[in-house]
């Protein structure tokens, strides 16, 4: 027993078996209904966009791992989720180089330079999107993206239509159409029903926090309702806002991204609500048609401050009592 180390490790020795791979796999699973619908609606190009985006994101991460001589981390599927989400936020006829650059920005600037998974204070997918939209706004115009398509419904991007033509344009789209994805938009963001099903699945499985989604949706509905009530001819109704653009994707898959959101209940509720409010402000009085991307990034910035609202730990501050 000469100098034998008897105690080799400490408890706990149990684990609930959850890990990042499972978490991210479930995330992708939850995205599937909307993604498949996108392929059915927009055809092979949509599949191409999502596949290229997913593989590019993983490839970039692998390349960065190799260059920086770190162990490969694509096994946790985080990059795959970033890639898939990124692809789902693009129109079906996005040029390939845009996806290559965008996933690089998302993975490199959004994630790897902060130290990889969990270290980035911003949502990598959204960061990539925001940078791209700032540079190449014209490729995100859904109205021009689908000129070669024939649709059995109004081929106008709902939010852009409302922005340019006023709230009356909202009547072109019935809520049922928006709900069932009968609108043009990003390949993975149009199918409201699928996104809601996926989101509820994630929440029930405990991979997304209901506080974030619910407060986010509440923020959108309440703010949009107030605008609509004040001036129905200028501002579209709350449900229109909820079902159009990236809103639902944001509510269930973007604002719930864990590394950039708070963890306590009250901050989560405030965070989501603030995000919802900012989105509607941007749509109704700001310069953007769909503010989801920047609004969520903006609340990402506020998240560390919100995290200061927290319960006192057991026995904290009683040392001198």
């Amino acid at each position, binding site marked *: 027993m000469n100098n034998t180390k008897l105690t080799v490790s400490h408890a706990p020795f149990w684990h609930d078996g959850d890990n990042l791979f499972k978490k991210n796999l479930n995330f992708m699973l939850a995205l599937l209904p909307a993604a498949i619908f996108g392929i059915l609606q927009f055809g092979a190009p949509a599949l191409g966009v999502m596949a290229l985006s997913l593989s590019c994101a993983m490839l970039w991460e692998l390349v960065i791992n190799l260059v920086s001589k770190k162990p490969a981390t694509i096994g946790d599927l985080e990059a795959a989720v970033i890639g898939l989400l990124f692809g789902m936020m693009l129109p079906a006829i996005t040029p390939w180089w845009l996806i290559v650059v965008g996933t690089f920005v998302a993975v490199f600037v959004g994630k790897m330079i902060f130290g990889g998974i969990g270290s980035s204070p911003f949502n990598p997918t959204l960061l990539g999107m925001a940078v791209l939209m*700032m*540079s190449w706004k014209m490729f995100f115009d859904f109205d021009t993206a689908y000129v070669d398509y024939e649709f059995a419904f109004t081929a106008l991007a709902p939010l852009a239509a409302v922005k340019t033509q006023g709230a009356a344009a909202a009547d072109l789209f019935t809520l049922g159409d928006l709900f069932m994805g009968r609108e043009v938009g990003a390949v993975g963001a149009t199918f409201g029903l699928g996104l809601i099903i996926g989101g509820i699945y994630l929440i029930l499985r405990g991979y997304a926090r209901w506080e974030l989604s619910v407060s986010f949706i509440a923020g959108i509905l309440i703010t949009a309702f107030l605008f609509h009530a004040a001036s129905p001819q200028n501002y579209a109704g709350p449900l229109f806002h909820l079902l159009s653009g990236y809103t639902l994707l944001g509510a269930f898959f973007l604002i719930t991204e864990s590394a950039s959101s708070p963890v306590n209940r009250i901050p989560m509720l405030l965070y989501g609500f603030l995000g919802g409010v900012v989105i509607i402000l941007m749509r109704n009085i700001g310069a953007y048609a769909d503010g989801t991307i920047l609004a969520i990034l903006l609340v990402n910035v506020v998240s560390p401050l919100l995290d200061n609202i927290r319960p006192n730990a057991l026995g904290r501050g009683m040392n001198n009592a």
Partner: protein
Amino acid sequence: MAQSLAKEFTKGLWAEIPPFRLVLGLCPTLAVTKSVENGIGMGLATTFVLVFSNLLISLLRNVIPPKVRIACYIVIIATFVTIVELVMQAYTYPLFLTLGIFIPLIVVNCIVLGRAEAFASKNTPVLAVADGLGIGIGFTLSLASLGAVREIIGAGTITIWGGNPVFAVGDWYHPFSFMVEAPGAFVALGLMLAGMNLIGKK
């Protein structure tokens, strides 16, 4: 003497090149580097102020009472800044317009006051001029290189002087205009700083 002169001059070009090694003077660095031309213009204006204020402060270093030295430095620097401002207005008007408020703000550029306090007030005029020139040219090079990176990626062109690009990538290139916007300035400088750290380590 010649050796130390060369040393004071060259340190500003690499070992203490602002803003990469001396993290000072970030505001003009970020604000004016949309193009190489602006970077060079800003850099030269700053160099002018640096050299002359260093010279004068070094000359007067035994006359200036220590208690009011900062006030004296500020008066001297502000004088040269105003001269630069007027001269640029008279001879390079378009550049003056693009650099705008950042020309009078050379007066609060930490690099200038920092060199005055840390170097010129303790050294002979010749060394002070060498130091000012080195740091100034280093600053100009930094601004020009950052401007080059941002301009070529963000606009697909390189403009050295006079407003007309000397090089353009071509029509096939969709400019990554994020780089010439405000956020891109921060990100580009941050990445270049990281690059310098990487080189410096080796």
